[in-house]
């Protein structure tokens, strides 16, 4: 077994926890420079000395996405902007977007984190890595780019879409590894078969990094079988840099979460108390190796559990299980994070529409799609072309907001289920 950083990856739990405490104390000192944390720390008399053991973590406040929005854009910056070299931002879902700042050191550490993950699943500098993530603000693009370069792989920033072109690159360049969302991996394989290719024979693909979209074990096995590869589940979120937070090893049994970068807690989303060992709860992460924008006890809203026992790969860093859902109503579709409220906001801008709507997520031809049904107010025309135009206008506005194109269906007034109490606006029928 070889490792990217053997000493860290196989460090004894005892040493790892000591390292965490040391870094947590440094993080608190650093975070105190950020107006947001400074305010909280002052009120609660928190200093680096408040933390002597990992148990003291519970003295620290939680941080939420809402806090990031309310302190948009730079209220959580712990170093001067002059020292920051990159900014990533979410699409600005409900109100302000969330911004994450990076120093040069942060970017280097992030690249190292991703490189460690890729090395773990067998990638070396002899590999040719094609990244089908969107680039730009979406962290799956640059995150994997820098990680793969750090590893020394020849990196192809193919970016998203254009399946034929992706396939041409895979064949012409001899791509051995892809980073791809699972539904698109299936689609890519299908197109290969359609044009008469036999991926196992006609490509050099051997490893696929899949993530950014909920998927099942069955879907992974299907991708592996279709493409003749090993597929590894990766987890990242923009607030925690992006990709590289946790990754499967070749055991394919849980994702190692790098504890020299983050401290992991699993809490009950209602009581915010830690759950019992191995129980499912909300993943809470504290960055301990980031200087531009440390986050303390960040509530990811992702539900998972820690897997008990040691991993056969020899790494000592804890493993999290496949995600079991969210503790809020965020929808993850094709790697895009969105909230129903964003959709509602757009729909409510059309006086032709009533207040009742229903979002259905479904898998069509192996691709995850969103259907939005919305009730019309009183009919205001006898011309269906007018309604078709309305459908197009609404779809375009939704696309601008969501960055993906939903299918929109007008519904007759009173035809959608009436919502009582807490409205259930989202039906998730995706085949996981």
């Amino acid at each position, binding site marked *: 077994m070889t490792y990217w950083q053997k000493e860290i990856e196989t460090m004894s739990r005892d040493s790892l926890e000591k390292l965490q405490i040391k870094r947590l104390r440094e993080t608190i000192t650093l975070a105190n420079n950020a107006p947001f944390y400074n305010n909280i720390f002052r009120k609660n008399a928190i200093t680096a000395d408040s933390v002597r053991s990992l148990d003291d973590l519970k003295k620290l406040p939680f941080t939420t996405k809402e806090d990031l929005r309310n302190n948009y854009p730079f209220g959580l910056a712990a170093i001067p902007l002059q020292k920051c070299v990159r900014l990533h931002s979410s699409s600005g879902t409900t109100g302000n977007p969330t911004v994450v700042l990076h120093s040069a050191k942060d970017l280097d550490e992030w690249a190292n984190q991703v490189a460690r993950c890729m090395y773990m699943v067998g990638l070396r500098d002899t590999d040719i890595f094609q990244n089908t993530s969107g680039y730009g603000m979406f962290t799956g693009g640059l995150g994997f780019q820098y990680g793969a370069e750090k590893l020394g792989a020849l990196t192809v920033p193919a970016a998203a879409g254009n399946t034929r072109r992706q396939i041409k690159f895979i064949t012409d360049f001899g791509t051995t590894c892809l980073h791809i969302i699972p539904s698109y991996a299936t689609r890519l394989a299908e197109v290969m078969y359609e044009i008469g290719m036999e991926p196992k024979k006609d490509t050099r693909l051997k490893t696929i990094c899949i993530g950014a979209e909920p998927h099942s074990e069955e879907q992974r096995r299907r991708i592996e079988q279709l493409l003749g590869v090993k597929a590894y589940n990766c987890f990242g979120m923009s607030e925690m840099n992006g990709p590289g937070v946790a990754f499967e090893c070749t055991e394919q049994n849980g994702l190692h979460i790098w504890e020299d970068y983050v401290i992991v807690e699993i809490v009950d989303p209602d009581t915010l108390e830690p759950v019992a060992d191995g129980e499912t709860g909300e993943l809470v992460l504290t960055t301990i190796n980031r200087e531009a924008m440390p986050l303390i006890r960040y509530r990811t809203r992702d539900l998972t559990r820690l897997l008990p026992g040691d991993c056969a790969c020899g790494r000592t860093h804890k493993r999290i299980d496949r995600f079991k859902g969210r503790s809020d109503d965020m929808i993850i579709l094709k790697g895009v994070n969105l909230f129903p409220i964003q959709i509602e906001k757009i729909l409510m801008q059309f006086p032709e529409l009533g207040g009742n709507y229903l979002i259905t997520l479904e898998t069509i031809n192996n691709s995850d799609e969103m259907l939005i049904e919305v009730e019309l107010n009183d*009919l205001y025309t006898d011309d269906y072309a007018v309604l078709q135009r309305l459908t197009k206008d609404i779809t375009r506005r939704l696309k601008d907001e969501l960055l993906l194109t939903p299918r929109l269906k007008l519904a007759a007034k009173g035809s959608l289920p009436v919502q009582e109490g807490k409205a259930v606006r989202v039906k998730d029928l995706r085949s996981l």
Partner: protein
Amino acid sequence: MTIHQISIFLENKYGTLNEILSLLADADIRIIAATVADTAEFGIMRMIVSDPQKACTILKENNVSAYLSDVMAIVTDASADSLANVLKEFTKAGLNIEYMYCFSVKEKSILVVRTGNRESAREVVRRKNFSYISENDLINL
């Protein structure tokens, strides 16, 4: 010179039409003509009924999206010539037809038509002396 037509938004769903028609039947409203313009996902049903105002009120009371619009109902003698003549005159006057449909009563063929520029359409009907149906005639059809 025009009559009221009721348009109803219809979803492509089992049983929808039946429910709506029952509402009208219960109120003793007769359907004189009906046509459906449809797309894959929804349709608009246009109807000429014996009492359009009452029909509209009943539908709205039952939370059905209904819309009243004005259309012309021109009486022709059921021959292709006669129909062609009406359309020819509209075309000559530079009017385009947004939609049209026909139905027959008492050996007369009635052309329901909606054109652009309603005022010039009325002018054509007056000048050519086309016979037409007015709102008051509906109840006796």
